[in-house]
Each structure stands twice: as structure tokens, then as C-alpha cells.
């Protein structure tokens, strides 16, 4: 169907290395107009580098790029943009101090004789937002938006330049099921209008839903390009990791013990109200719901970041008042937040410093740090979680997303919590790391830890939880046992009034 025309973008034998590390080795890739071409590979497989080459952020060491059959060289992002190549990056790359309209139009603001035409800019932005089903004021500053809203603004930005090629690097990782469906509707609409789409996602089921073909990379090398219609999940995983993964959700069956945490009629004004539940020893309690349903607020209340305005929290049957994270940590509660860059990690610090941050006092005597002990503890933590690193002195900012998440986990496990709250623990990390995180959760529960897991990914909630709570608009709307729960039931509780 697309044999007669040249691919919009074609990459031949591209190689690229950064300071001795070979990121891409002799990679081929092509995408036709009207095609959704998935790019698959574990974190560190070279997908991001490949994208950066297509968008002119990086230049290849060797190999050739073709645009509509003609050899081309993108010296910078501007050059790629003028050819209609747009990218939505994994981490929202918006300007927090600018408003939505300007974030969409930045560098291309509509002009009239006397300068930037703000009125037109707000009109156009408003139209685009409406097209995406967003009822936001285009004058809102980006810093006031949720992660999901920021992602949609980036999609609006790509739409606004009428992209010939749209590269989407994990656009769905921070979206809820409903938002994913809306996004896919937009992607299909773009495909129908002839846009070439490069789509990256770690959720294989999504690729089967949206992609036409898939190209797999492993350790910077090209593995294969296949049509989605004649490839299976198992084959894809094998291509990606070079071995077949055992079970994706290795939940061990654990007999839940006594109640360790009991929450009664907990409320935070304006965020959620009258939330009650019990969490038992050795149990993984899943918390499903849409983004903005108040799940994170519940976690923050239990951890004392945003203390509850009414209701009680009981630990081992005794009422406690948790008004600060310090207090929560004293009570052996750990919290791994959703946004690891914002709240979970200090990117400019070493792995060792990050891991020992909450327990630093343990390594100090009279305020002097015992560096050796600290390093030792950090090493143990990162080995337990199989963090891929040059050494514990490496800066966290240099690690891939999956490995950063492992460091966050190591950090909180170092506090030896009895109750661990995980907020979207596997968002945006690859299948291999995801499985490792799931295995770890399962082991921790087996050792008697009580885990509260907030997740917007239904397969994860269904696969990992012993019991599932569902929240909607600040209310608890459902509770299901592992046996009862189905995707339909959960979504019904999460979305329908």
C-alpha cells in the first residue's frame, strides 16, 4: 500500500556514540506517510538517541538521513521543524512561566505589523485545545497544569505546526485510560490525514491497538521491523530483551496478616473526603482511578505532606497524628512519589547521596558523616535493586528513567518502612525494569511489608493487587478483591457517576 511512494523519513546505517558509549550501531528505520510506526526497545536501547537524530537535536557520526527520498542533514531542531518534523518528548518540555498559548506557539507566535498578535494567538490556541477536548483557558500558566494536561498541550503544539512526521515518545505514560483513548482518536485522525507517526510506548497492548508496523532496537542495534498484524507479544518481548520474560506480573500469593494501617473518614478539604480503608501486613492494596481523582492526595495525607483536615489514621490500632513527612518516617511509613524528578530524587546528587538522604542521620556521629558506611549502605541498596550504573558516585541525572526509579525505591527501602506507599511505581519505565520492580514489590509483601500502590495502569493494578480500591472525584467508589476485579468493573467505578 505504501510501496509506490518514498518514506517521509528514512534512516540508513546510522551510528552515534557519546563519549565512548555506543548509543546506536548501524540502525535502519523508515516511516511512511499515513503510517503509525512503533519504536520498541528497553530503556537505553537507543530510541531516544534515534529520535534526537530525526529531530536534529543530535547529528549522527555516520550513516545517512533521507527526507522524501532526498539525502538531508538536519543541523539543528529548527531545520527539522521547517521540514514538518515535530516531537513530543517523554518528559513534558514546557515553559512553566509561559501560558498555554505561548507554549504551543513558542518561536512561531502569530505576528502582525506591530508585533506579536496575542489575540490571534489565544484564539488559535483555544481552537486547538478544543480539538483535543480540553476546556482550559489558554492564558493559564503551564506551571499550574497537571502532568497529563501538560502532555496534551505538547500534542497541541505538534498539531499547530501541521507536522508531516510526528514523533511521540511515550505519550501515554502519564495518561489515564480515558485520556489514552482520546489520544488514540487524535492519532488515528492524524494518520488518516497523511501524517507519519513514530510511536514509542512500553505498553505493548497499546501498540497492537494503534501501530501498523514495529521496529525493535536492542542495546543500540537494529533487531527487526515487523508488521503488527503478524507478530505476538511474546515475540516482541523476545526481540526486545533477547530472552523471554517469565511472567509479567509475578505476584506471589501471600496470606494477609493483621491490620497495620487503618484510615477512617479521612478528608482533605477540596481534595477528597471520607476515605476509609484498612491495609494489612503482607498485602498489596491497589488504588485505581483517573488522574485527578484524589488518590495522590490520600497518599500525601497519610505521609503528612498535606495533612488531613479531618478523620483519623490508626497504626496497629492506635490513633496517630501525622503532620509532617518526618513524623511519617518515624512511624516507618515510606512514600515513593509519582514525579521522581520533582519529588523523589535530587538529580544533581550522586546515587549514594540520594539513597541515604532520608536516613543520613544513621551514618553521622556528632554531625560528621561516616562516608564509608554511607557508601556501603548505598551499594547494598543499589545491588539489591539491580541499578545499572557506573558506580554509586554517579550522578542520578545520568541514569535512565527505569534506573532512576530503582534508586528512588532503594532510597525508601533504606528507611526500612513497614508501610510503603508507591505512587505510579512503573510509569514510563521499560518492560524489563517494570518486571523487576513488580518482583521486588511481591518479595517485600511476602516479607510482611504492607504496600499501598497507586496506579493508572489497569493491567498493573489487576496483576499486582490483593485488593483494589477505586476513587473518583475525591470519593472512594469501589472495593474489589483480586478475584472479583475486572477491567470493566474498575473503570465503571472510576468513571461513571
Amino acid at each position, binding site marked *: 500500500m505504501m510501496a509506490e511512494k518514498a518514506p517521509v523519513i528514512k534512516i540508513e546505517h546510522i551510528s552515534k556514540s557519546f563519549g565512548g558509549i555506543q548509543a546506536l550501531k548501524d540502525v535502519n528505520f523508515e516511516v511512511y506517510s499515513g503510517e503509525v510506526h512503533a519504536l520498541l526497545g528497553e530503556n537505553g536501547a537507543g530510541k531516544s538517541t534515534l529520535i534526537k537524530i530525526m529531530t536534529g537535536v543530535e547529528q549522527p557520526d555516520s550513516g545517512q538521513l533521507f527526507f522524501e527520498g532526498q539525502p538531508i542533514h538536519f543541523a539543528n531542531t529548527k531545520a527539522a521543524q521547517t521540514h514538518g518534523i515535530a516531537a513530543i518528548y517523554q518528559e513534558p518540555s514546557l515553559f512553566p512561566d*509561559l501560558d498555554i498559548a505561548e507554549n504551543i506557539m513558542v518561536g512561531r507566535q502569530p505576528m502582525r505589523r506591530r508585533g506579536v498578535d496575542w489575540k490571534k494567538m489565544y484564539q488559535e490556541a483555544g481552537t486547538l485545545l478544543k480539538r483535543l477536548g480540553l476546556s482550559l483557558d489558554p492564558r493559564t500558566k503551564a506551571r499550574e497544569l497537571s502532568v497529563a494536561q501538560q502532555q496534551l498541550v505538547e500534542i497541541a503544539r505538534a498539531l499547530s505546526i501541521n507536522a508531516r512526521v510526528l514523533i511521540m515518545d511515550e505519550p501515554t505514560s502519564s495518561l489515564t485510560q480515558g485520556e489514552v483513548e482520546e489520544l488514540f482518536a487524535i492519532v488515528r485522525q492524524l494518520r488518516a490525514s497523511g501524517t507519519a507517526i513514530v510511536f514509542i510506548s512500553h505498553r505493548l497492548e497499546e501498540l497492537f491497538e494503534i501501530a501498523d508496523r514495529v521496529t525493535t532496537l536492542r542495546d543500540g542495534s537494529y533487531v527487526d521491523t515487523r508488521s503488527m498484524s503478524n507478530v505476538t507479544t511474546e515475540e516482541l518481548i523476545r526481540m526486545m530483551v533477547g530472552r523471554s520474560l517469565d511472567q509479567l506480573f509475578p505476584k506471589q500469593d501471600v496470606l494477609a496478616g493483621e491490620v497495620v494501617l487503618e484510615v477512617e473518614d479521612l478528608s482533605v478539604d477540596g481534595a477528597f473526603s471520607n476515605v476509609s480503608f484498612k491495609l494489612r501486613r503482607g498485602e498489596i492494596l491497589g488504588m485505581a482511578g483517573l*488522574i485527578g481523582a484524589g488518590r495522590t492526595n490520600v497518599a500525601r495525607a497519610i505521609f503528612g505532606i498535606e495533612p488531613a483536615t479531618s478523620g483519623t489514621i490508626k497504626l496497629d490500632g492506635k490513633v496517630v497524628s501525622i503532620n509532617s513527612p518526618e513524623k511519617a518516617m518515624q512511624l516507618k511509613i515510606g512514600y515513593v512519589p509519582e514525579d521522581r524528578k520533582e519529588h523523589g530524587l535530587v538529580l544533581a546528587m550522586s546515587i549514594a547521596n540520594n539513597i541515604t538522604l532520608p536516613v543520613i542521620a544513621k551514618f553521622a556521629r556528632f554531625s560528621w558523616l561516616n562516608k564509608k558506611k554511607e557508601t556501603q549502605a548505598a551499594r547494598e541498596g543499589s545491588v539489591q535493586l539491580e541499578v545499572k550504573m557506573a558506580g554509586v558516585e554517579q550522578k542520578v541525572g545520568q541514569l535512565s528513567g527505569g534506573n532512576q526509579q530503582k534508586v528512588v525505591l532503594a532510597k525508601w527501602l533504606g528507611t526500612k518502612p513497614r508501610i510503603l506507599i508507591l505512587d505510579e511505581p512503573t510509569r514510563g519505565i521499560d518492560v524489563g525494569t517494570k518486571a523487576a520492580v513488580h518482583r521486588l514489590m511481591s518479595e517485600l509483601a511476602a516479607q510482611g511489608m504492607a504496600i499501598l500502590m497507586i496506579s493508572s495502569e489497569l493491567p498493573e493494578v489487576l496483576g499486582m493487587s490483593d485488593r483494589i480500591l477505586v476513587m473518583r472525584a475525591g470519593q472512594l467508589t469501589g472495593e474489589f478483591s483480586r478475584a472479583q476485579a475486572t477491567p470493566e468493573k474498575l473503570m465503571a467505578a472510576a468513571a461513571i457517576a
Partner: protein
Amino acid sequence: MIAEKPEVASPPERRFWQIFVKFRETGIIIFIVLLSVLVTLRNSAFLSADNFRDILLNISILIIVALAQSMVIITRGIDLSVGSMIGLTAMMVSYTVTAFPGMPTFLAIPLGMGLGAVLGSLNGLIIAVGGVPPIIATLGMLSIYRGLIFFYSNGKWINAFQFPPEFRELAKGTPILGIPNLILFAIVVIISVFYFLKYTRRGRDIFAVGSNPDAARFAGIQIKQTIFTVYMISGILCGLAGVLWASRFESAQTNTALGFELQTVAAPVVGGVNIFGGSGNVLGVVLGGFLLGIINNSLTLVQISPFWQLAAQGLLILLAVVVDSFILRRLKRFSSKRKR
């Protein structure tokens, strides 16, 4: 599946608070009013037209340079060499004016701005192309430009009697409605900078680069050119300020505008320009400069010992920033409670 939509409609009683909170300058205006009331109670001369005119004259040059400094700060930089650039252009222009008494004096303005552009471009090249951190680059240039003043003047000052009489009119003349030129120049600069920042792409790029440099790179914004531009503009406005300074005080000295950089940073910070870059606006900077002017003026009016004036000045600046952020936080909390 339905995604949750953020709510847009808002009850009318919320609007007022929203506008009030969004108006970033609320805190500083409250502080200005408060300070004015207190000073007037001690000395009613404060509210006189003459005193007001005096304050405006004193802050005109400050506001011109503070606006330049603000643009630099918005890109996450800082220009510490402003005082030295003012001093050097003041000296060079004064020398030229006294050496060629026949030359039309208004030419001093483009001459000063041209000289400033060269000095500022040098800063810009070192920072944008050389990749030297702004604080280090401009600290070095602070000393170099100051040293050049000595080199150029052999340590000699140019005094009032050496200037042609028309030269003082550059700053002090009152061609329109009796308003001194100095104030008119400040107004023109305020309007130009406002227009530049709000209505030109390069002006918007300044905010983008400061708000998120990585995203700016992805968005295809010319980061180096943008950074170069703000330092060049800083040089141009310092050149203008240098000419006005020499004209107003009818002298060019080796220590002209020595230490001035501190005030040019204080005004934007008091006026709500984020010291870490990304945000700030012209009105805030002007109010910040105005507040500094009122502080200096009132310390004299309420007869605080000159020995204490510098310390009192610093104290009031800190107080202004604290009061501002306190009020802002209070208002934000109040409005967000209502929002939910």
C-alpha cells in the same frame, strides 16, 4: 471512557481574588503605600511635588539600567559589569564632548549607546559563545572596564567647567511640559522594553530561554543569539545611562557608578523578577526602582544618621521582599482554598 475535565466556570466572588492574586505587584504597592504613609507622618514634605520630582530624577537612570538587568536575569544570567560600563562610557563620551566643543551635543547619545553596544557585545560573546558562567564573566569585565577608565583618563576627572554648557541640557533640559529630559528618556526606555518583551519574538524567547533552556532547545529557539542579545542590550542601555550620568552630574570620574550594580539587581528582585530566571515584568521593575528611590529619599527626610543610611536601606529592601512574598503567599493560599 471519559476523562475528567478541569472545571472552568467560577463563581463571580472568586474573580476579584483571582485578579488580585494574579496581579503580581500587589505586595510591593502595599509596601510603597505603607512606607509613604509612615514617612509623611514624620515629615509632610514627603508628599510635595518638588520631592516627588526629586525622587523621579534620582531613579530615572536606575530604572533604565534595572530594566536591562532584568532582561539578563530573566535568561538566568546576571550582569555585574553595568556600573563599570556606565563609568567607562561616561568617561569616553565626556572626553569626546570636551575635546570637540563644536560637535552637536545630542550626538553624545548615539555615541554612548554605540560604545555601550561594543562593551555589552563583548560580554555577550564571552557568555553565549565562550560558555563562561555570566556571574564570572561579568565579574571579570567589571574589573577590566573599570581598569580601562583609569587607563583612558590617566586617573584624571572631567569637571563641570570643562563641559560645553549645552551638555548639561541633555539630562536637565525640559523641552516638553517642563518634564526633565532624564525622566523622558526613562519613559521612552520603559515603553521600548515593555514593547520588546511583550510584542517581539526575540523578547518572548528571553522568557522561554530562562524558563526552560532544554525545552527552548527542542523548540528551535536560538539560545545563544538570545543570550547575546540581552547582554548587548544591557551594554546599550548602560551607554545611554553613562551619557545621562555625566550630563546630570556634570562630571566624569574614575569612580562614576561604582557599586551601582547592586541597586540594579535590587530593583528587579524587589519588583518580582525571579532571580532564577523565567519571569518578571516591566511594571514590577519600575515599581521596584520607585521603591528604592522612596527608601533613599525618606531616610534623609526622617533624618536618619548618614552612618546608618546604608544599613537601613538594606534592611528596608529585605523587608520589602519579605512583605511581598508574605502577602503573595497569603493571597494564593486564600484563593486556592476558595478554588476547591
